[in-house]
């Protein structure tokens, strides 16, 4: 009996080995050239793996049959086959597609995944293909700052899509009645740290039934306590990494400025201004507070706002929660850090045999004509020009038409266009805020395009250690903010754990990388 079992199991194992070996042979041809002008493009298929997005297609249409993709097929001449990742589990799906024998020819990645794939040799080196497609170099993707982001060891493995952050900065907001009662000028408030603390004190005295300040603390996943970014900026601990006077990097979470910032937050807690349930408040609860106006001050980010016009209105004259702005720290430090200048990294997986055709397709995709059509639609149908030549969206009952182009096919965003959208929603664009940080004040130079916060190199020790560091920061900072640990007790505990997790080695590794750039 036992013998039978063993024999059977080994047979099964053998069978599985044989199957696995034969079933997984991947062809590995490097991208070959072929004269792209004489070839019949409609016979060439380019498989594009697009990222998940919000909009769903009209009935009868799908990602490979709608006016946008048809227009693109016509313009470029290629037979395009798009596949859209699901919104849930997109990472897993992408990994499965990479593991399966059918690889796409083009796909869009975020920076973390991009670096990961480069280090694992999943991607094609595009130097040659770019050389053969000179028209590509004339596009916005090859602005120096943008192009440099795509380089790994001096070689481009991706074509970067430029995009400048249009999301609105996080800001301190106040209930309009509270503002009136306390005499706060919402259009030009005094945002110094002392003034803010004073506002809290007066609000608590005048409105004892309201929660003085609330935020969605449950969403904290690393050292930036959720909905406190307006405060972090004043201490210049907003950027994750900072450059010191000697040119090396330091990790913001372990600096004296961070301690001071935590002290401020702790003071808020000690004096009863901070929502005692801060650590358990998540987005739905925050929105509930906003809808019921049960808090005097908020630290909401623009995507916290519930999708209801009564509350989303942020016009300072009529808003329910007019935006006050960011705190101003010592020497006038204020303003949140701009996000990365690159939105996506468009890559070609290793083994694709249509590399150059892909580059050609990108030429079409990045043309001004395509941009106009995909981003805006047609003049007269989706938008019209106003007196200044700015595009004003028309009330289109088939709004979906334009939005599909915007979400699945458009290649990059021009800053002004994105800023316009933000403005329409009543928020200020992050690029328009006033930003003063240590670099300007103390004359320090941060090579912003190589800011590790957005351009984190793929170093093993960092990849493996960072998640635990992030968890450690979140845990301890929340403990301090919610009174579970004293300020100094918590701070020392945090530093001790940070050290034991190898944090100092990680900081040194990143700093060395930065200095070596």
């Amino acid at each position, binding site marked *: 009996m036992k013998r039978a079992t063993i024999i059977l199991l080994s047979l099964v194992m053998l*069978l599985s080995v044989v199957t*696995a070996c034969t079933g*997984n042979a991947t062809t590995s041809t490097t991208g070959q050239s072929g004269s792209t002008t004489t070839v019949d493009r409609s016979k060439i298929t380019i498989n594009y793996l697009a990222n998940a997005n919000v909009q769903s297609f009209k009935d009868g249409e799908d990602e490979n049959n709608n006016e946008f993709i048809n227009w693109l097929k016509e313009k470029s001449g290629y037979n395009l086959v798009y596949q859209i990742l699901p919104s849930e589990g997109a990472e897993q799906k992408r990994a499965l597609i*990479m593991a399966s024998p059918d690889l796409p020819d083009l796909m869009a990645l975020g920076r973390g*995944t991009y670096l990961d794939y480069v280090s*694992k040799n999943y991607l094609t080196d595009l130097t040659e293909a770019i050389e053969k497609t000179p028209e590509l170099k004339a596009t916005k993707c090859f602005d120096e700052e943008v192009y440099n982001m795509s380089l790994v060891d001096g070689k481009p493995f991706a074509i970067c899509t430029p995009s400048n952050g249009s999301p609105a900065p996080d800001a301190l907001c106040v209930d309009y009645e509270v503002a009136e009662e306390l005499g706060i000028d919402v259009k030009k408030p005094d945002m110094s740290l002392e003034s803010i603390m004073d506002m809290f004190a007066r609000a608590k005295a005048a409105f004892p039934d309201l929660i003085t300040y609330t935020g969605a603390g449950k969403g904290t996943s690393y050292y930036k306590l959720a909905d406190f970014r307006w405060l972090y900026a004043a201490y210049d601990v907003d950027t994750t990494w900072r450059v010191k006077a000697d040119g090396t990097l330091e990790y913001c979470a372990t600096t004296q400025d961070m301690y001071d910032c935590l002290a401020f937050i702790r003071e808020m807690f000690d004096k009863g201004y901070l929502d005692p349930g801060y650590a358990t408040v998540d987005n739905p609860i925050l929105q509930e507070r906003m809808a019921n106006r049960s808090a005097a001050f908020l630290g909401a980010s623009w995507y916290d706002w519930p999708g209801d016009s009564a509350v989303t209105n942020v016009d300072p004259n009529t808003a329910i929660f007019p935006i006050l702005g960011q705190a101003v720290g010592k020497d006038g430090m204020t303003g949140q850090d701009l996000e990365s200048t690159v939105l996506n990294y468009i890559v070609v997986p290793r083994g694709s045999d249509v590399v150059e055709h892909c580059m050609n397709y990108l030429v079409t995709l990045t043309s001004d004509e395509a941009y106009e059509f995909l981003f805006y639609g047609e003049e007269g149908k989706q938008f019209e020009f106003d007196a200044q030549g700015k595009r004003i969206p028309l009330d289109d009952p088939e709004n979906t038409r334009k939005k599909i182009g915007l979400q699945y096919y458009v290649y990059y965003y021009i800053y002004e266009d994105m800023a316009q959208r933000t403005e329409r929603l009543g928020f200020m664009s992050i690029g328009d805020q006033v930003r003063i940080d240590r670099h300007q004040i103390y004359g320090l130079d941060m090579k912003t395009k190589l800011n590790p916060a957005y351009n984190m190199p793929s170093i093993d020790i960092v990849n493996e250690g960072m998640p635990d560091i992030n*968890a450690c920061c979140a845990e301890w900072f929340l403990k301090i903010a919610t009174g*579970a640990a004293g300020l100094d007790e918590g701070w020392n505990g945090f530093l001790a754990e940070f050290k034991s997790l190898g944090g100092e080695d990680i900081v040194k590794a990143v700093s060395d990388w930065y200095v070596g750039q």
Partner: protein
Amino acid sequence: MRVAVSADKPQRRLIDRQKLFLNIKNSWQIYLLIAPALIILIWFRYIPMYGLVISLKDYNLLDGITASEWANPLFRHFERAFRTTKFWQALRNTMIINFYRVIFQFPIPIVFALMIDECQHRRYKRVIQTVSYLPHFLSWVIIAGLFNNMLALNTGIVNQIVSLFGGQERAFLSDPSLFRSIVVIADIWRGMGWGTIVILAAVTSVDPALHEAAFIDGAGRLKRIWHVTLPCIKPIIVVLLILRIGAMMSDNVEMILQFYSPTVYETGDVLGTYIYRVGLGRMEFSFTTAVGLFKAVVNMALMLIAHRGALAMGEKGLW
């Protein structure tokens, strides 16, 4: 057939083997019946097991399993897991939460099923049962939202009741010492109705003649339950218990993800959530496979222990 002679061992074996062939021949119909199921089992469950070797390699998606390089040193991914204290913390939390579930959650569907069965009115029974499994269909996001509501400071029902009785209001969900209990309670509430389905089916197949006999002998309700119903459903309970113990390493990741926050990591972080955080966006297949393999081995060991334990107590085991 030859008569067995005591010193004639080979002949005894011959008779056994003849018997074996005879049995196989007689059972050919059964083999036919289960052939498709077995083929599918081997094809789709056993053959992919070759993939477990990923944990010993630095798996490269494009190269495939066979062409990926062997990890250097071979057990690198296992080492990485065992090195971090957070891993052991997650492991400890996993086992403790599961331990609570075995002790508290396991008996409840049984009790509930018995209670339902005692109800005399047939239609009411059906209604109660249908209603009781509704929570099973609510997603954890919603359940967590509900609990959040109930346990909130100032506005939550629970805290209001507590302060009514003069107690101190607490932020339940951010308290590490209470987190596990809350999570187990949520799990009990959700799984209670669904778990009674199996038990109820077992309870209803108890021979009514036995109940009648007990009743005539003067046994009241409780006595009948104790002496008739419970012994009859003992086999299925034991099997379920073995499986439950064998699943000590399983973790309800979806549930914990919705409930936990950084303040309760030390008691609430389980293996699944730990891997989720560590592997977020990086798809570390070798690492996750290594941890998964470790979990499976411990699982198997526990199941074997429980199985042997059941056998020792005179019950039927798993196989």
